[in-house]
């Protein structure tokens, strides 16, 4: 067993565990912290795939910026321990949900196992692809159009957030 497999296992199990902790924790702050842990695990996974830039961005943007916002909101809304998140879902739903999710996982695993050539090697130029330079190059040459279009997407989301947050309808009109 080489180091790659060991690292992958650690990060993968960690990612799944922290994701489960995120949705099952009844304390909002603990939930948010689990999510931070989850993002770190994902960053680790990216690293094992030689995608340094993505890993760094993952930590900076998600675990850093976005989660700070989330925690701020939790604090501002003053969702303490007393105010727990939702009451537990019904047992039936939990069972059915886990069952279908399990089934989905099973099917996916079967599909991967059934792949005739398997998935045990990285593409040859993976080392180059993951670098800042390579990503910058493809974003600003080949993928320029979708990259610029994403700015429209962000703009729409931004305006949407402003609309939903406005206090009264009459202020704007």
């Amino acid at each position, binding site marked *: 067993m080489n180091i790659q497999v060991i690292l992958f296992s650690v990060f993968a199990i960690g990612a799944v565990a922290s994701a489960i902790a995120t949705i099952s924790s009844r304390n909002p702050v603990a939930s948010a912290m689990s999510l931070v842990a989850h993002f770190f695990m994902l960053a680790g996974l990216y690293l094992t795939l030689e995608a340094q830039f993505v890993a760094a961005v993952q930590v900076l943007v998600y675990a850093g910026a976005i989660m700070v916002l989330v925690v701020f909101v939790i604090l501002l809304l003053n969702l303490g321990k007393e105010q727990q998140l939702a009451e537990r879902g019904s047992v039936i739903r939990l069972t059915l949900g886990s069952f279908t999710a399990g089934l989905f996982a099973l099917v996916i695993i079967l599909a991967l196992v059934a792949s005739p050539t398997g998935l045990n090697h990285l593409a040859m130029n993976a080392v180059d692809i993951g670098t800042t330079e390579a990503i910058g190059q493809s974003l600003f040459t080949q993928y320029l159009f*979708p990259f610029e279009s994403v700015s429209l997407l962000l*703009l*729409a989301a931004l305006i949407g957030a402003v609309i939903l947050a406005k206090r009264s309808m009459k202020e704007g009109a």
Partner: protein
Amino acid sequence: MNFDILGSLPLIVIWLALGVVGIIIQAFVRSDSTRLVYGYYIGTLVTTGLLAAATISNQGTAFGGMVTLGGWAAVFDLLFCGAGVMAMLAAQAYLGRFNSELDEFYTMLVSSVAGMMLMAHARNLVVLFVGIELMSISFYIMAGFFRSRDKSLESAMKYFLLGAFATGFLVYGMALLYGATGTLDYSVMLKVIAAGTARFPVLLALGAVLLTIGLSFKIAAFPFHQWAPDVYEGAPTVVTAFMSTAGKAAAFSAFLAVFGVIMPMVKVASMTPTLQLVLAVISAATMLIGNITAVAQTNVKRMLAYSSVAHAGYMLMGIVAGTTFGQSAVVYYAFAYTFMQLGAFIIVGLLEREDETSLMISDYSGLYRKHGVFAAMMAVFMFSLAGIPPFAGFFGKYMLFYAAIESGFTWLTIVAVASSVISVWFYLGLIVKMYFSEPNPETHEANAGLAGISLAVCTVAVILLGIMPRIITGMLGN
């Protein structure tokens, strides 16, 4: 790299108008200048639409093969812009009545049109994804635009949660396709798939299914349709009108392109028949569930929502067929459906009252007496939706049914015809209420205003497309 400036004009114009000029106008002009923004965005859509119409014959690709130009994509642009203009004409008075007219609404509407155009033009899965998200995010916001209404917010939230859930599968599918074929570009992917040289056939199949699922959610096909009635009912009616028509057409434009790529999986364990069968089953179930459930509805918006689910089922038949004829049938039906459904929803919006009432089918009794013109238009839309000649809906259905038969899906056509017989029940139910019932003593006051233009266009189009379907099919033929 040769660059087709003329062909890419529609995309560039809407991009600049939205992302550069529009923002500046909104940022620097006085905050109560809704009129200006309104006019500006209508102008934007009209210009884009005209440019699209002008570039239909100007086929090619641009931006390094990321987008296709002209052809079907341009025809779809015309549809999106047209529907957008009609929705905007109806929206001003509607939002005003509900005291919710913010100029951001129009920004959102145009940005959703931009998203749709990206979807139709995409020749690369990344562009498709950005388009889908741009459209969806605009829709989420528009659905929740009545922030003081619980239903509106609830519908936005539901749409967002379920939409995000579906997007997960969509992206997963794209990733698997990339893994299996090593490319995101449609044409390259098609070559790999058709040659049967994909590295991981299982992943290819899995990716194709997940992509299908993601798109099926956007068109509200069974079993991914549950959100549609709730969202369509809760959202502001003009928004429902727009997203249930142009939004669906956009999803189909993507469906057409994507299935052109992933369908020919003949060499991969003969996946094509299986995929076709899966789609055929989805299509049959969708139209049956949609039509049968609509029978029992008492709320007009909800009834139309289920009917829109059913129509997604019909349109899928063209995709199932996979032939050129099937594809042009889908395009034709997208137009026919847009006009009739948009018109119907606009009338619902006009009659709707500020306290969220007048939405029941029983509220429409005797409408003919008070608003003869609305009732007549509504009747035309209902007949067309039910597929009665000579209206556009009939011809569209006819083409779709024929396409399915031609590809050997006789059973699917029989299901479709049977379910369209069932659908007559509830479409006629509304007409019977409007024409053959005593008027409701409570008066509904309604003024068409600008929405009258949209309604007139829809009515004329529904009739004209039925009499001269070549208006649409001719655009594709050349």
